[in-house]
């Protein structure tokens, strides 16, 4: 029966056109940027593998946010259209429904990000190679740790959006918070702490801690790997937990 709930959630995801469009954009953006940079960089011979990976990791963060919006929309549209009632009529256990949504969100996000990462790498290094570059994975320090951190972050971001959706239950509001949290809210909170005389506030902003662990090796002031992603995962788990408690108490 759990497999059936997973299968039903998968049907819900792939039968809505806007979901497919978001996945397509999330895939295309890092690949396009990497290819464009490979095509137009003026000195391809001095482009090395670590720079390509940094570029792909950085642009993949945009893909993560797009996929987070997908999961926010996927859940909150159920409240907007009342289909959550049809879902709970078929599967009265709300825990199982939310767990299935979390599992599908994690798997799809991780798969899209992984495929995007390697396609972007393969296409961009092929272009660079044709222009005389010798960019290769050998030039990348901790490539598998970087990749693992990116996949971990992608899973956690999907939980983060799910948790917000469970609590807020409104599509526009959930998408806005999902996007503004990393882009604005954490920066404002960090700034407020800094003005109040608290040092290293930026280091303790959950999303920033996780992103920093992906795009660099954890040096400097960041929490680094694996603590950055784990710290953000703890926040996402709290959001999902609070959302689940509310979900079980609220009317559907």
């Amino acid at each position, binding site marked *: *029966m759990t497999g059936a709930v997973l299968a*039903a959630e998968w*049907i819900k995801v792939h039968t809505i056109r806007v979901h497919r469009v978001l996945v397509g954009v999330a895939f295309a953006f890092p690949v396009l940027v990497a290819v464009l940079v490979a095509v137009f960089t003026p000195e391809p011979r001095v482009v090395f593998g670590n720079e390509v990976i940094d570029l792909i990791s950085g642009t993949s963060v945009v893909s993560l946010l797009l996929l987070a919006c997908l999961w926010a929309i996927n859940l909150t549209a159920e409240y907007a259209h009342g289909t959550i009632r049809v879902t709970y009529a078929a599967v*009265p256990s709300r825990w199982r429904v939310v767990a299935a949504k979390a599992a599908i969100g994690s798997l799809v996000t991780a798969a899209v990000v992984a495929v995007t990462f390697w396609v972007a790498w393969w296409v961009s290094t092929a272009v660079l190679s044709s222009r005389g570059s010798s960019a290769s994975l050998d030039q990348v320090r901790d490539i598998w740790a970087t990749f693992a951190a990116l996949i971990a972050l992608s899973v956690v971001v999907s939980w983060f959006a799910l948790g917000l959706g469970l609590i807020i239950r409104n599509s526009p509001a959930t998408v806005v918070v999902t996007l503004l949290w990393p882009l604005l809210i954490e920066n404002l909170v960090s700034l407020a702490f800094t003005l109040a005389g608290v040092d290293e506030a930026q280091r303790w902003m959950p999303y920033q801690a996780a992103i920093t662990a992906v795009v660099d090796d954890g040096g400097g002031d960041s929490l680094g790997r694996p603590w950055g992603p784990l710290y953000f995962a703890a926040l996402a788990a709290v959001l999902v937990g609070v959302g689940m408690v509310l979900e079980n108490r609220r009317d559907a």
Partner: protein
Amino acid sequence: MRCMIGLDRADAGQVTFDGSPYHDLSQPITHVGVLLDAGYVHPARRAVDHLRTVAVAGGVARSRVDDVLEMVGLVSVGRSRVRRYSLGMRQRLGLAAALLGDPAVVILDEPANGLDPEGIRWIRDMLRHLASHGRTVLVSSHQLGEISLMADDLVVIGRGRLIDECPVGEFIRRHTTTRVRVRSPHIGEIVRQVRARGADADIVGDLAFSDAAVITGLAIVDVGEIAAEFGAVLHELTEVTDSLEDAFLSVTGEAAEFRSGS
């Protein structure tokens, strides 16, 4: 109805199906089919995909999707997105979802909403058909004319309280007065005889020229026998029964939540 299937929390009481609360049923949509609102469907999804999500989640074979689309007459548009559906088509889709699990109990809220006359007759016949095959069909509706045509038993609720519970015919008899309408060239004599037996009789229209009266307090058989006793010719002898709506309004008058000032 949402409380019955655990969507809303009830303040008190519980509902069981074959002795079990809804959430304890294994594969609940195979026991209870529910249509609460035809709008509970994502407009960007195809009808067939909507039904597949319900079937798969509820543990029902996907082949049932085509069966129920056939039952509700949506086969030709099953692969269209729901945003193109009229309200009546969404009602049919909602009923299809409720019937996916071939349940013994069907719960429907205002199933005739938005349907055209042909659709209203179709859903009436469909619900009667389901009931005739041994299913329990619970319908909530304010369309009392429709209810009087399709329901066997009534549960009347006003302001959250049970007002009455009985078969439709008994409810009407219990809460309205049955009258007898008579037309005769000897209407004056009939009225005198009826009044002599303690019943009420009102001449319809102009007293001097009317040939019709409405009699209260006697059965139609008694009125016919009175006319026969003195050889009166009858042009009409009809039992006049109030509608379910009349009975409903008379019994829920005090429980009406909102009413106009006039």
